């Protein structure tokens, strides 16, 4: 078990290395001369050469990469030429905001998806089953940005129940209830599609287990259906559900970009989009690094959690 965990951790090294190489090289692929872009069209050759030397642009590419990596490891991702701020300083608070949205959405998607999936499986081939599976099929194909707008139309414009923009209201107390009110709609819009997929997978997973012999034994000895489901079926069904839920995280983070944009949520995704539009390569690079690293870490946690919870997934 410990050997496996160590192997899994070692396996991360080439992936992390690859991520930094890809991100570094994309910056190098951008057409145009950085020095000329900074100094403007009037710059003479001597000052261009001086700036290139100062920025280290005249060095070999692997030396540039090593220096960039060294600085990145020390939390220095450079300066954003657009907002005139260190990239890390710009991104860290946005990262926190995205964690709030992604965490709430993930919780919602798993709880909602598993509940609907179990309900559908326990009422197989009834109206409840068909309706919930039909709905999850439609919801699973909804663009999150569109669902966000529909929610705004209903709950912010028509009913006036919920705020439609930002994380806190300007006149609010900035407390938890204010945050919660702002969080509900973006979290639902982000959670909907991954939740629908989790529901379908949960149903399939539970149905497969309900067909097994030991469930028949449990039923034939007269156990109430609730106990069969809760005590016997779910305990075995939920490791695959956890794996499936973990796989939806990337999908969920992708969706969060759109909901952050629609609801003005000041997160990493929204920052990425505005940096892309402003062609702020430094910030795009930093955001890509943040996203990739956290995604790799989350996948690692899901893997290890699964290993801990499901003895069957452990290597012999």
């Amino acid at each position, binding site marked *: 078990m410990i050997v496996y965990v160590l192997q899994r951790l070692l396996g991360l090294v080439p992936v992390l290395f690859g991520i930094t190489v890809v991100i570094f090289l994309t910056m190098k692929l*951008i057409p145009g001369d950085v020095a000329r872009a900074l100094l403007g069209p009037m710059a003479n050759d001597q000052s261009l050469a001086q700036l290139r030397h100062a920025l280290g642009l005249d060095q070999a590419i692997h030396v540039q990469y090593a220096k960039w990596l060294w600085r990145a490891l020390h939390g220095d991702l450079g300066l954003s030429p657009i907002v005139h701020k260190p990239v890390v300083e710009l991104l860290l608070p946005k990262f926190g905001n995205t964690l709030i949205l992604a965490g709430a959405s993930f919780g919602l998607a798993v709880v909602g998806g598993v509940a609907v999936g179990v309900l559908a499986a326990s009422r197989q081939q009834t109206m409840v089953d068909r309706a919930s599976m039909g709905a999850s099929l439609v919801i699973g*194909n909804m663009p999150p*940005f569109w669902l966000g*707008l529909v929610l705004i139309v209903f709950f912010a414009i028509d009913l006036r129940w919920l705020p439609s923009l930002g994380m806190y209201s300007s006149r609010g107390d900035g407390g938890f209830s204010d945050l919660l009110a702002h969080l509900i709609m973006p979290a639902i819009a982000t959670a909907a599609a991954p939740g629908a997929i989790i529901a379908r997978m949960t149903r399939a997973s539970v149905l497969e287990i309900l067909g097994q012999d030991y469930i028949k034994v449990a039923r034939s000895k007269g156990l109430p259906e609730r106990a069969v489901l809760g005590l016997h079926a779910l305990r075995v069904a939920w490791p695959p559900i956890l794996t499936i839920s973990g796989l939806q995280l990337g*999908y969920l983070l992708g969706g969060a970009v759109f909901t952050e944009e629609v609801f003005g949520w000041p997160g990493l995704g929204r920052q*990425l989009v505005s940096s892309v539009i402003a062609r702020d390569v430094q910030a795009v690079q930093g955001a890509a690094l943040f996203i*990739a690293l956290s*995604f790799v870490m989350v996948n690692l946690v899901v893997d290890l959690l699964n290993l801990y919870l499901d003895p069957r997934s452990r290597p012999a």
Partner: protein
Amino acid sequence: MATTSTALTVTRAGARPRLRSGALAQSARVFARDRQAMVGLLIIAIVGGAALAAPLISPWDPLTSASVERLSPIGTPGHVLGTDEQGRDILSRLIWGGRASLLVGILPTVTAGVVALGLGLLAGYLGGAVDHVIMRALDVFFAFPLVLLAIAIVGVIGPGMGNQMFALAVVLVPYSTRVVRTATLSVKPLEFVEAARALGASGGRLVGRHLLPNVLPPLLVYTSTLVGMMIVASAGLSFLGLGVQPPTPDWGVMVGNGRLVLYRAAHVATIPGIVIVVAALAFNFVGDGLREALDPRARR
């Protein structure tokens, strides 16, 4: 059916048919009996046909304002689905928008499938160092959430419809390659491949004649389900202003424009979204149908 297969054997005497026509016919029958898949096919035919026939059937020009009335509601005489913030007919823009929206959903997926076919066959057939290098290089891409990676690529090469399609194709290659490689590895050790090799078949012949026909069905199934997802994803990029650029009509662009007038006329943003959902669903129906038809293990 019998006459067709006889004709086939006569004209291609000596040649081994790639897919036994019996198996192909059975798959086609299973697919044709699948009601959901047929509904999906019908929707795709209607939406795609309308997009192709846009110059003939579109009631108004999609780019110029057709009416003095802006933001007219659904059911306005002459404008069944109303008009947008510039007074352009929404139905006409939906019909024309199908061209860009379907293209940016389908073309990157197919391109990625073709590239993946080459890479996956290479990795799976050659194995060893080649396999290792290809798969480890692609592993890096799995470290990024798909849509975010596409956005970052557009960030580097710049927004626009061509770059959007390029970015989506790039992010899909690792996923499709994995499917092709897995399929290749499952066929490679089978006896008929061994037999062909023992009979002296060249590497090219082994891949083209024996591996390819067995790798194509799973790739086809996978690609068809991806198209639905890509229609949603590419609409998203266009919505953000990173893909198809206005004034070109596109469903994602329409939702993005409609968002600006959401408080005054919600239908401008919501109607194109419904079309996106329906189109994505249709491709998923067809993908599920293909899976049932081509993968005997998946049949109920």
